[in-house]
């Protein structure tokens, strides 16, 4: 229960008290599902992160993005700056 609350606060989600119980149940279900992984035999398997894109680099060349994306995606904008509720 405490853990669910902490995770919710880290994810900036507000969970109502009466929803907590059901979340705990769901979390447990997910965790037990993940637990299956730890049962796998990985004795002879080395870690694998590699995507099939060896040494993919860009040269240091500037390209400007043609559209002003910001105007399309920012809910509110002032002098090209994105406007959000005051942070501090």
């Amino acid at each position: 229960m405490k853990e669910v609350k902490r995770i919710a606060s880290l994810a900036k989600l507000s969970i109502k008290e009466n929803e907590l119980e059901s979340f705990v149940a769901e979390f447990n279900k997910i965790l037990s599902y993940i637990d299956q992984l730890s049962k796998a035999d990985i004795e002879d398997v080395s870690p694998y992160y590699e995507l099939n894109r060896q040494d993919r680099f860009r040269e240091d060349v500037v390209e400007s993005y043609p559209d002003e994306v910001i105007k399309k995606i920012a809910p509110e904008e002032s002098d090209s700056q994105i406007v959000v509720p005051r942070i501090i």
Partner: protein
Amino acid sequence: MQLEAVIGLETHIELSTKSKMFCPCSTDFGAKPNSHTCPVCLALPGALPVMNKQAVEYGIKLALALGCDISPVSRFDRKQYFYPDLPKGYQISQYEYPAFIGGTVELSEGKRIHLTRIHIEEDAGKNIHGAGADNHSYVDLNRAGVPLLEMVTEPEITSPEEASEFLRKIRQIVRYLGISDGNMEEGSLRCDANISLKPNSSSTLGNKVEIKNLNSFKHVEKALRFEIKRQKELILSDQEIAQETRLFNPHESVTYSMRSKEDSFEYRYFPEPDLPLLKISEEWIAEVEKTIPELPDDKKTRFVKQYGITDYDAGVLTESAELADYYEACCKKSANSAQIAHLISTELLAITKKTGQDFSVVKPEYVARVSELMDKGSISIKIAKQLFPMMAETGDDPDSIIKKKGLMQISDSSAIEKIVDSILEVNQENVTKFRAGKTKVLGFFVGEVMKKTRGKANPKIVNQILLKKLNADNG
């Protein structure tokens, strides 16, 4: 109880690549807000980051210069936190497997500060917060995604002065390497400091306090000085030091609490699935090694040896690679390298510092010429001192200034004799004093001759003639 400060620094170095770390947006400073953004640095769905080769190369350069171990394979991780300067909700950084490990930075007294690691990451955007009734913040993401190196030291720094010397040294090295402009004011060099105090009889450390966002050498020193005083007072009055993050208020030179350990971030790092592992081959390192220039410490040692100048002058002249090159260009034109070193460090730099000009307004051959004219006895050091401000102002060469202003030294003995005679005549009182054994008044006479000739009389000849006249009539 003696308390010793234990300081570790985390320094962020903004790299001077043309484009960002993972997308081709420009890194130019001061552009219209959000004009340097694209789907990658705005974290639009489906956009994929691609590593900037140059940024990695700059990292390799610094690692080679500081003697770090270069990991053949390192990895990018996601560091999660919520703040509107970070569109993705995470920063791409390196956590478990940094690209560069270890290394040292040597300070002037020979003390070596060991590095824990240097890793590659991306910068965040910038927020401006509304004041007063304006309850909005304004977000500019031009800086989001600009490549950074984060350098972490071991807690081996023991004073605020040492911390700022460390940072100056880092700035000097990154500028020599040409990987960052190192401007603290523009945020190209930023620093967080960890500090705790320990009784010097004990090996246990007090609780650690982190001071964030120190953006000038002065701030670093002031914040640490305040923090040492604050922690000392707490310890001596038996109060506990809270483990926390603090910010520095430059207006009052104090630090204040930003957040305590309890609500500190949990970054939940995990491997960045959008990027391949970063592989740095021996061949690549060898390639980069060829581009490493002579570093400041080596250059300084060479200058002392090759040009026979003082340690101090060599330190001043190797402050930047540009100044060092300038000095060497002067020395190519004239042989008196020690005199040239002195002219640059005391005359040229003094005047250009005052006017805010770059030292290069005076051409290297002009400095060489001034030194040559001094060697020939055509001008005195006094005239040389007058020449530098005039050369800086007009950009003219010393010969034409000397001609125009009539500054050529008077070495003609008969002319000087006449002047000396006239001065002795109106200062009989001092002549008597001299002859009574008060030889100190010689200085007075030299001064009078110089005044009359506006500094142009050859001081050696003036001395000779004065002594001859004062002593000769002494019988």
